[in-house]
């Protein structure tokens, strides 16, 4: 069974801090994704990666960056946290063959920026 692990369930950070959200998957999946989830807006895609050292912008990349140095790990970075980045962050992975494989999600990190 695929396991996607997000390092923190809850985080509280101050405005202006640099924040790292870590995600690790254990099934050798090529594809990894970061979403944020807000009430009434559903899931919005921030960044995704189809391979090591590769990244693509999603729909709302502003204020975020990512790092994928190893296949199993995909990190989301908030360069300078702001209150409007308070949200639930979800990491997901999927195998590389085409686009018909479902995503496997972690349990999320609820980030509060004060």
């Amino acid at each position, binding site marked *: 069974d695929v396991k*996607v692990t997000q390092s923190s369930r809850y985080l509280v950070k101050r405005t202006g801090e640099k924040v790292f959200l870590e995600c690790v998957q254990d099934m050798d999946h090529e594809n990894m*994704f970061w*979403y944020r989830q807000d009430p*009434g*807006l*559903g*899931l*919005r*895609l921030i960044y*995704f990666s189809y391979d090591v050292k590769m990244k693509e912008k*999603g*729909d709302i990349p502003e204020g975020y960056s990512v790092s994928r140095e190893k296949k199993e790990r995909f990190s989301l970075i908030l360069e300078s946290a702001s209150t409007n980045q308070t949200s639930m962050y*979800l990491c*997901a992975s999927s195998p590389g063959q085409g*686009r*018909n494989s*479902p*995503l*496997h*999600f*972690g*349990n*999320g990190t609820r980030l509060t920026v004060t």
Partner: protein
Amino acid sequence: AQSVAQPEDQVNVAEGNPLTVKCTYSVSGNPYLFWYVQYPNRGLQFLLKYITGDNLVKGSYGFEAEFNKSQTSFHLKKPSALVSDSALYFCSLKDMRFGAGTRLTVKP
């Protein structure tokens, strides 16, 4: 632009009654469509998908979904709802975009 829409924020049904959670789509080409469920304080779990073939797709926990090309819809259904089905449901496209979600509440 490709997109999915979930026209209902909230669906309420009584336990034992059939349930439907609606999803419509707008795509060019083949519409690979997915349904996911999210229980409180958890990530999303895959329920079922439509790639090609039969318009009625069966998935986990007794759920099924009907693909309708003429109406560009992919509604999630279950013949008899359980209180434990209460959760947030998301429809999504192959390009990783999701609908806004529908909160299903099943009352005893």
